[in-house]
């Protein structure tokens, strides 16, 4: 819980500060062609991506923070 609290504070504080400072979004919309390419998606495969997370959850001790699937697989 302490780790989560610390990480959350670290995560939120720079954003709060940015609201009161001169920091502006540094990548303009017209500079985002490459980022808009489908190959730059963190989760490209939808259901297929969710399935491979399920495969690992059922065979490894670790779980969570997969960054894509979620909601509980009910797969002890």
């Amino acid at each position: 819980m302490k780790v989560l609290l610390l990480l959350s504070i670290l995560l939120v504080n720079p954003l709060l500060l940015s609201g009161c400072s001169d920091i502006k979004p540094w990548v303009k919309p017209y500079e985002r062609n490459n980022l808009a390419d489908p190959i730059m998606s963190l989760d490209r495969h939808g259901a297929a991506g969710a399935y491979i997370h399920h495969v690992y959850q059922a065979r490894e001790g670790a779980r969570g923070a997969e960054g894509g699937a979620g909601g509980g697989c009910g797969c002890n």
Partner: protein
Amino acid sequence: MRGVDVVVTNLSKLPSAFFKLFFILLTTVNLSWVPFSAQAATLPVDSVDILYHSFEGGGMDINGPFVLVRKSIGSQVSVNGHYYVDSVSAASIDVVTSGASEYTEERTELSAGVDFLHEKTMVSAGYTESEENDFLAKTVFMSVNQDFFGDLSKITMGYARGWDEISKFGDEVINEADRQNFKIGLSQILTKNSLMGFDVETATDEGFLRNPYRSYRILNDDKVGYTNEPENYPETHTSTAIAVRGLYYLPYRASIKAEYRFFSDNWGVKANTYELLYVHPLGKSWTLEAKLRYYEQTQADFYSDLFKADTQEFKARDKELSTFSDVTYGAGVTYELGKGFIPYINKLKFTLLADYLEFDYDNFRDASDTSLVAGTEPFYHFSAWVTRASITLEY
């Protein structure tokens, strides 16, 4: 299939510190991002995703369909549902060597969800039910995500709560377990060619957490033979996982993704996961990809392949709680057709993904050969193929 899935019910039982933090963050998000609004976020695309999946290895064949449908209703609401089946041919080795009989079974999962978009905020909620002949899992989940800082950043928070009913075939007793998990994620555009993702998830399970069919091994008084006894687990399991991902657009049209995850739980398991993914388009229609993933973990405090004496309360012989590592070598190909090929279809995508997995156990022995002296059997090893073939239609 939300990015971060999380919660809604039974507020009185929520861990209060995290609950407070969750809503402080949620309030902060909505108050501080608004000045950076540039362009609206979008609902998921209307689509049908039909997947056939197969796992072959370790004496098990598991396969079946997975169908996901999304449909928008107006400009602010999108609904989705999925149907998922696992047809399982056999139990894993740690259950088989516990004396369980040969069996086949089927797990069916149904899910329904809704996404609601308001300006740059998306709220998602849903319900999933998974059923086997001896296992029933119900889960509700909710998540909130918000684009901000000129759409360079996105924060996601979620909560899920689940209720499991676990029984043993031929036994009237129904055991229960409650599950909760919380997630916070941030994705951030770093440059015009790179972005990163950061995710933290904590999960807590309470209740009956072991497999009712699995046993541990304990040496007999003669120190030669052993006896199988039903496992005994703690009734609480709490874990935290932290992951960092980076995605980079190479100088030519291709991308490389690297990720690292650290996991730790109150059972003494610590794990590291490393993954690299290279994606390379060929022309307008084809995309190739290659993946390398390595995972390693330490054993749980109460795990042993062969207990020497009955000196501790909790005892497990689950190979997922032993010390082991696994490697995945993956490859995939995608073929995509754009608008105009089929009436009313905006995009048609075929995907074939194949992964080869190798598991090596450091202190889980292959006890299937009962002629060997207990504790001298070779360490278990297995490999598996995971194949996924899918068709995605966007309409």
